């Protein structure tokens, strides 16, 4: 597979196709970000940049032919991970690719995160270093395999030279290089010699039939450190003389500090400094507890004249008023007006989706050490190039003067991929304002996180569909109202075209069903609540609206939901394949025990195709219990099937938690939730039994981090429709009580 073979529909978190000319894209990107000077835009030639011969031998006796791996004399192979691992398994995935082509042993593989370097470590889907949109593995697939194959060829060459034999007679297996004569050596023994061999231009990649790890099994590289507490997250970084910073943040979006009284905060033992910063009032303390106490003790009078004052109910009413007028066109097929005239039945449903917080387990945080001339930053950086560039700008330093250390992140779900890099920016602002070289760790409390914005936008949808006399859909009007994620960010040029932010309509504008007359349009609203991509982005709402509507229509037309879909998916074999597999494994059509109902949904996101069949029952109080979810995914070649399964399980849990009870609501511009009591999330007792089935495929690998999230909620809603007759058009579901249909 080559770079250009990647699916062109990797809409990704940046909602843009894989660029055909990465260089041009990168240049334009840096231009729109305001850039950090020419330093970053050095010439890039091949997808696999090399270190020079000197660099390859930099560490004594170590083989480091490219920026992606090091083979050390102690026989360890260190894979350099260019993407943040926030739980999705990027480190394991990229290590799998290297280990495969190197024929390494799992036990000798170590990983470390790459430094910020948009040339060496860019994501080919974005043109800069960063990960999102479930692109981590897909964009690295050839690159990291090639990195491994390069080292393997050099180890073989070194063995051939050492043993004075022909390279063709040498084999490599499980970290051991062997010759038919019986001679053998470990990678570590050969590393020093191999480092002197010439770097092959085009190392041969394995035939997939010879894979030992890819498509099979490669245990996670991070499991041991994550079960014994030694894995270091941003918040775990501690240095001598370190200060902990909290920020008293505005209670409303857009409010500014008018005045503040720090006397009580300053009297708390351990508090070193209280000072205004652009984000609010920063507190620096010698310990975390003092910093948290002081944050609560500080008295701030806020200037609210520029703040967002509307509540969720106001927004829903405003948005609903827009549903009657056409918006900016995202798709138009056929002639909708004529089609509605021929329809014998018209069915309409309006949907409401609330703001959602990502609420990763590790609240936002960043560590910075700045001495006026250079800086080190430690954080779970998801968009290294932006975060690095932001730090350069705030601190007024050249890129080479700042080391950005990417560290394990306690979740993200999109939260750490932030266009304005605010969690890095504020740490740099504080460091600069403090003006002393003490390391500073900025932490957000959970309340800061829940109230802090950057939510999945609130959306309102209307779908109006016409059925013919046979119950077939002949007309489909889908109108979406909500804020744009891309507008006003550096990504606007890539995401917004002709007034349509592709991330607002993805999953709706590419409705897969064979319907002759379709219109999808969008009203983009403005508001003061900052919004952001939330695991699976547009599909978080479009999948629910479209897939629930399909079942509503199947019911109106008296059709079986699976058969109804398949009849409209004749030209969409991958949708149909996932749907059939899930239906078959779930025993679709077979009777369930009394009190349980079944529902199905299928959806494409991030170039992967996922179908869920949910089995649902009702608790005594009328709330929804999801008993079992059967999931089928077509993600092309599943590089690590167990990681794919884990991402589906987790995506289902994440999506279900939001679908059942997730909502951030505002009243008078203030967020009404503060912690996991008001913003309750899925817990153990609510997690369904999940079964994951992977559609066998040799197609290039596509994303798995996000596509598992959006499908479960419509599948559950469809089960409820079947069992109770009730439509679930307002999320979360716990807003209503369901009763079994008698």
């Amino acid at each position: 597979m080559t770079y250009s073979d990647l699916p062109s529909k990797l809409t990704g978190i940046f909602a843009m196709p894989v660029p055909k000319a990465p260089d041009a894209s990168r240049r334009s990107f840096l231009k729109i970000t305001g850039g950090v000077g020419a330093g970053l835009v050095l010439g890039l030639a091949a997808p696999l940049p090399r270190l020079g011969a000197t660099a390859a031998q930099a560490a004594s006796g170590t083989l480091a032919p490219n920026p992606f791996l090091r083979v050390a004399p102690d026989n360890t192979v260190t894979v350099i991970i260019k993407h943040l691992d926030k739980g999705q398994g990027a480190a394991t995935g990229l290590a799998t690719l290297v280990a495969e082509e190197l024929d390494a042993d799992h036990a000798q593989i170590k990983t470390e995160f790459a430094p910020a370097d948009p040339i060496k470590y860019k994501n080919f889907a974005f043109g800069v270093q960063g990960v999102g949109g479930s692109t981590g593995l897909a964009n690295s697939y050839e690159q990291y395999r090639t990195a491994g194959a390069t080292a393997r060829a050099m180890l073989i060459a070194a063995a051939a030279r050492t043993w004075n034999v022909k390279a063709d007679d040498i084999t490599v297996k499980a970290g051991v290089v062997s010759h038919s004569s019986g001679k053998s050596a470990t990678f570590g023994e050969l590393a020093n010699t191999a480092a002197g061999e010439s770097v092959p231009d085009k190392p041969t990649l394995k035939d997939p039939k010879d894979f030992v790890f890819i498509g099979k099994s490669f245990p996670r590289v991070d499991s041991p450190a994550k079960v014994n507490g030694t894995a270091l997250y941003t918040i775990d970084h501690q240095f001598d003389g370190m200060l902990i910073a909290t920020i008293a943040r505005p209670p409303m979006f857009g409010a500014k500090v008018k005045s503040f009284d720090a006397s009580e905060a300053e009297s708390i033992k351990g508090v070193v400094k209280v000072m205004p910063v652009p984000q609010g009032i920063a507190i620096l303390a010698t310990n975390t507890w003092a910093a948290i106490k002081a944050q609560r003790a500080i008295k701030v009078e806020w200037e609210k004249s520029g703040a967002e004052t509307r509540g969720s109910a106001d927004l829903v009413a405003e948005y609903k008023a827009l549903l009657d007028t056409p918006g900016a066109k995202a798709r138009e097929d056929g002639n909708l007006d004529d089609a509605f005239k021929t329809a014998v039945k018209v069915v309409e449903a309006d949907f409401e989706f609330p703001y959602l917080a990502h609420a990763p387990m590790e609240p936002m945080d960043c560590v910075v050490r700045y001495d006026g001339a250079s800086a080190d930053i430690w954080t779970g950086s998801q968009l290294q190039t932006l975060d690095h560039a932001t730090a350069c700008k705030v601190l007024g330093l050249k890129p080479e003067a700042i080391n950005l250390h990417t560290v394990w992140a306690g979740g993200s779900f999109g939260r750490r991929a932030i266009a304005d890099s605010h969690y890095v920016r504020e740490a740099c602002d504080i460091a600069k304002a403090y003006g002393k070289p003490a390391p500073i760790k900025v932490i957000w409390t959970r309340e800061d996180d829940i109230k802090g914005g950057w939510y999945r936008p609130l959306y309102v949808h209307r779908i109006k569909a016409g059925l013919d006399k046979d119950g077939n859909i002949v007309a489909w009007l889908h109108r979406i109202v909500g804020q744009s994620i891309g507008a006003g960010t550096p990504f606007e040029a890539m995401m917004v075209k002709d007034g349509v932010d592709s991330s607002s309509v993805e999953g709706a504008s590419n409705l897969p069903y064979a319907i002759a007359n379709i219109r999808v349009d969008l009203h983009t609203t403005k508001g003061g609540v900052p919004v952001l991509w939330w695991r699976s982005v547009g599909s978080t709402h479009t999948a629910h609206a479209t897939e629930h509507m399909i079942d509503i229509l199947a019911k109106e037309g008296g059709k079986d939901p699976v058969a109804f879909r398949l009849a409209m998916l004749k030209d969409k074999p991958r949708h149909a394949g996932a749907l059939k597999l899930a239906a078959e494994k779930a025993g679709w059509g077979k009777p369930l025990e009394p009190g349980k109902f079944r529902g199905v949904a299928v959806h494409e996101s991030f170039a992967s195709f996922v179908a869920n069949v949910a089995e649902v029952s009702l608790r005594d109080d009328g709330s929804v219990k999801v008993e079992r979810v059967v999931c089928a995914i077509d993600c092309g070649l599943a590089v690590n099937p167990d990681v794919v399964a884990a991402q589906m399980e987790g995506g289902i849990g994440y999506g279900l938690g939001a679908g059942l009870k997730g909502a951030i609501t505002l009243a008078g511009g203030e967020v009404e939730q503060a912690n996991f009591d008001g913003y309750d999330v899925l817990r153990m007792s609510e997690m369904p039994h999940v079964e994951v089935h992977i559609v066998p495929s040799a197609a290039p690998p596509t994303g798995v981090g996000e596509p598992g999230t959006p499908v479960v909620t419509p599948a559950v809603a469809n089960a409820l429709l079947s069992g109770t007759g009730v439509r679930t058009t307002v999320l979360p579901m716990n807003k209503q009580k369901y009763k079994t249909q008698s």
Partner: protein
Amino acid sequence: MAFTATINGKKNSIDVDPETPLLWVLRDELKLTGTKFGCGAALCGACTVHLDGEAVRSCQIQARDVEGRDVTTIEGFTADASTTPVAKAVQAAWIKLDVAQCGYCQPGQIMSAVGLLTQIPKPTDDDIDKAMDGNVCRCATYHRIRAAIHEAAKAI
């Protein structure tokens, strides 16, 4: 004010504001960063430790509460001195099933799982629902946590 407590089998004297949550005593003073901050309000379980053998939320226990008592953190399950066969079985099951994703909640999950299996060696799914509901995992690894608890139960 100084407090004396046994942390992971070792006596420690800690000089802090008496109302400092145990969580921050462990993390900031004793550099035991395996215990995580997630909510500060006993709502997520990321800070779960054992106090005299029972799972508690260290964000709610204050320094003065631990005077003369035994605290075990995730680091205690690594040190041979204080680890237990149950803890070893739990950690092995967690690795075998690759439970962790982001991993941030897992020290707390493991403290709770060890607490459960110590008191109920063969827990039912219902026992797991009750004993583990206080531990939030935003990656929603619950399915594997459940499987790993059953797996560990087999090994104990």
